[in-house]
């Protein structure tokens, strides 16, 4: 309940900002210096604030608890994406003046169809990114208070839509920068506090975790989603109403909403589809996405998706528009890498502690709540409560910042590119997008936030990455080539994801390439784009358009200023 209380000031602040509008620069008596530029540091704090989502705040530690130390490759990719952006697209994209990738496509290639296709890609990427945000918010709410998962998701969706509709549509740099500092403090301070509280034994175990085989005490596990447990040794289980029964060897289906208490000393049942945390594979510094085969391929797949996908994330690229020129856009990207690097030092701390203190979460599939579940295990007194409250508030701040940005992008794509109309349509689109995003989040309870977000990166890497890179660097790109490449990348990546979600299990390395398709979809999109472009003739203005993207801002025509 205290955790809930921590949310209230956060929600009030968000709503107040939404209602009041954002007094970004203000001077009441005298005049502002309007030509004062936004500094790259402030801008990169805003980029990071928008970028650090629930997947970063909670998901990485959760994945580490579940899949092992190799999951730390996710934050590596999340941060390194800005390097690719810095080198390849930041400055030319800013010089083009484009706000979104569909804008860029129209400015560079002059094709309204490409613009529409781009808007569709924006919808897919933002959707894949938005669903895990809502899902995580729902999980966190149900972990810190006795609300069912679906209520949490609906509340989260309603809060975001209301805040946006009440006037939060102003994409506010100062607010996002503040949110970044807030998240940084709310993530780092509890981490250090927890480390201090946990004591030397836990710290030693965290560095050298053993396999999780036996319950070290009576362990209560709440199943928010259904799960199938495979019991290898009979274990005594107490239901919430007090009935005790002994689970026989074999598979047991546990329905959603049940809470079971496993008796101390019992052998931990395994969960279909994942290995118990802390085994030998857990230490391996590589990822395993499917079963435990092909860790190197899995790691490279995830890295390809995250590094190349960042430049295509619709809510992030918009932020670079705030930079006054190409050079400061590049500087912004560079500082962002550093700021994110600081933040991403800490999911590892939470992951390692969670492995020692809350390994049972993997039974219920709620590993994403590990971060907020930790303090209660370390300290039952006020310190634990305060830490839970801080972390919950931080997670909610992460969720709010990112989902508001994403909803706005979705609404912009609908109201601007697909069905052009006035402001009223933009507002309607915000509410519509929130309503559409909630149902998938209800069904996505079983899929980790980190995985879903990486799929968003994969689609962005297979569509916008080739479009941006070739559009900026290659004069011969034609509208037809760009259309064909983006369409091929979109079809291939979303098709592979659909197979991974709904299709049959694919064994072996092919399975890795279905679950993380970036290594083949990105080259495919590049190849199609180049091949189709070579067959046609580039538009007459292509040379000028490309030159303009690369012309330094200081040398742009006669100017007296």
């Amino acid at each position, binding site marked *: 309940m205290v955790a809930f209380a921590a949310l209230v000031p956060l929600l009030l602040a968000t709503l107040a900002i939404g209602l009041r509008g954002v007094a970004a620069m203000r001077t009441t008596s005298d005049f*502002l210096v*309007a*030509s004062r530029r936004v500094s790259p540091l402030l801008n990169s704090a805003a980029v990071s604030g928008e970028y650090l989502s629930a997947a970063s705040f909670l998901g990485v530690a959760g994945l580490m608890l579940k899949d092992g130390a190799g999951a730390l490759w996710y934050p590596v990719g999340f941060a390194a994406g800005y390097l690719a952006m810095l080198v390849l697209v930041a400055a030319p994209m800013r010089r083009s003046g484009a*706000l*979104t990738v569909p804008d860029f496509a129209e400015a560079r290639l002059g094709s309204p169809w490409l613009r529409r296709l781009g808007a569709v890609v924006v919808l897919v990427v933002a959707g894949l990114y938005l669903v895990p945000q809502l899902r995580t918010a729902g999980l966190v709410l149900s972990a810190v208070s006795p609300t069912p998962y679906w209520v949490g998701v609906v509340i989260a969706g309603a809060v975001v839509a209301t805040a946006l509709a009440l006037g939060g549509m102003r994409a506010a740099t100062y607010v996002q920068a503040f949110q970044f500092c807030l998240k940084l403090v709310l993530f780092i301070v509890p981490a250090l506090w927890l480390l201090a509280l946990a004591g030397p034994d836990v710290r030693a175990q965290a560095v050298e975790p053993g396999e999780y085989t036996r319950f070290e005490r009576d362990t209560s596990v709440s199943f928010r989603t259904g799960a199938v447990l495979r019991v290898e040794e009979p274990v005594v289980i107490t239901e919430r109403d007090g009935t005790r029964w002994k689970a026989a060897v074999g598979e047991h289906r546990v329905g959603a909403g049940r809470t079971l208490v496993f008796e101390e000393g019992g052998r931990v049942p395994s969960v279909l589809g994942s290995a118990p945390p802390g085994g030998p594979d857990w230490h391996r510094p590589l990822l395993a996405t499917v079963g435990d085969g092909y860790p190197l391929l899995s790691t490279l797949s995830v890295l390809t998706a995250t590094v190349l996908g960042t430049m295509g994330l619709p809510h992030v690229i918009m932020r670079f528009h705030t930079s006054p020129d190409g050079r400061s856009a590049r500087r912004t990207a560079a500082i962002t890498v550093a700021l994110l690097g600081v933040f991403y030092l800490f999911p590892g701390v939470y992951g390692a502690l969670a492995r020692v203190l809350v390994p049972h979460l993997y039974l219920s599939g709620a590993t994403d709540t590990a971060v907020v579940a930790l303090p209660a295990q370390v300290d039952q007194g006020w310190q634990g409560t305060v830490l839970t409250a801080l972390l919950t508030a931080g997670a909610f701040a992460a969720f709010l910042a990112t989902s508001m940005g994403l909803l706005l992008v979705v609404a912009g794509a609908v109201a601007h590119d697909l069905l052009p109309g006035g402001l009223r349509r933009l507002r309607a689109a915000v509410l519509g997008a929130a309503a559409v995003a909630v149902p998938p989040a209800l069904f996505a309870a079983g899929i980790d936030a980190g995985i879903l977000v990486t799929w968003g990166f994969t689609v962005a890497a297979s569509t916008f990455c080739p479009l941006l890179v070739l559009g900026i660097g290659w004069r011969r790109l034609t509208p037809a080539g760009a259309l064909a490449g983006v369409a091929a990348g979109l079809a291939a990546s979303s098709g592979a994801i659909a197979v991974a979600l709904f299709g049959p299990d694919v064994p072996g390395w092919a399975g890795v390439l279905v679950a993380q398709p970036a290594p083949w979809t990105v080259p495919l999109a590049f190849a199609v784009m180049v091949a189709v472009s070579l067959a046609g003739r580039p538009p007459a203005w292509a040379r000028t358009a490309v030159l303009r993207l690369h012309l330094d801002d200081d040398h742009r025509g006669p100017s007296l200023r």
Partner: protein
Amino acid sequence: MPPLLARTDHTQSTATLVAARSVSERLKHGLNGPGSRGAARHLRHLLGARGLALADLSGQPIWSGRPAEHADTAPLLEAVLRGEASRGTPPLQAAPLHAGDDLAGVLLVHGDVSARAVREAALLVARALESGRLEASAERAAQAEFRALRAEISPHFVYNALTVIASLVRSDPDRAQELMLDFADYTRYSLARHGDYTTVSEEFHAIETYLALQRALLGDRLRVQVRVAPEVLGVAVPYLVLQPLVENAVRHGVEPGGGPGLVQVSGEAEGNDCVIGVEDDGPGMPPELAREVLSGGREDSDAVGLANVDRRLRHVYGPWYGLVVETEEGAGTRVVVRVPRFQPGVLP
């Protein structure tokens, strides 16, 4: 009464109409534009020719279908370009294309096509070229008007500023010099730059200069509040769209009252749009008057400024993006400019 067309004839004539329209659409950008190959193809289907070519004045034919293999087309083309009259007999004919009074190119037809059909086709192409030229010149005229509108604003301000400075020259020469420099800054901004667009940040700078000059005249009566979100500072807008609005707010919101007046200028992003509002707490005006001002129905100099900004915004961004004036008698005035944060072709 004309006989009713049979169904097959009906579809055939529709197809003919479609082909004719598509030929004229494709030739909008001239004979060496991107659509000329497609136009040649449609024209060939229309005539049922084996091959058909369009050549501009350079004499380079763009062929569709099978070129005339045996005959050398170059001398024929040359002859038509020199003589400006139709030459050749089936299966190879050439007709000159006149756009307006000038020769624009040659139509080459290879195949069994009657001379009359070739002549009509040449007329169709010529008409399409002519309408393309007209469209281009209409576009140029609109551009010229747009530039002229921009120049129309400055004199108001020049006059006002010089009056303000003149009033200070005797009483406070230092201040007058400062203001003169401000004024010099401003004229450099509004007159010396090339191109049609600037950034919101520069526009706000221009407002600053203007308000500095106004404060010299009005002193403490003029209170100003400016709030700009950093996201919109880099947005490209036409030159001098904000200054007339601020000028309007000062002149009608603050000057007449006698008491202090507040002018608020705000700029922020709203989704993909940039919204700039200029608000004063002056006497306001009846909404009908505001409507009349915007429609350009009033001839006095201040009204011209607002209507001018409105027309330029619509010209650049389309009919969605005009000025919005919210006003009522005794309730102040708020003028809102809404522009997309990115519009292809609009770059500072």
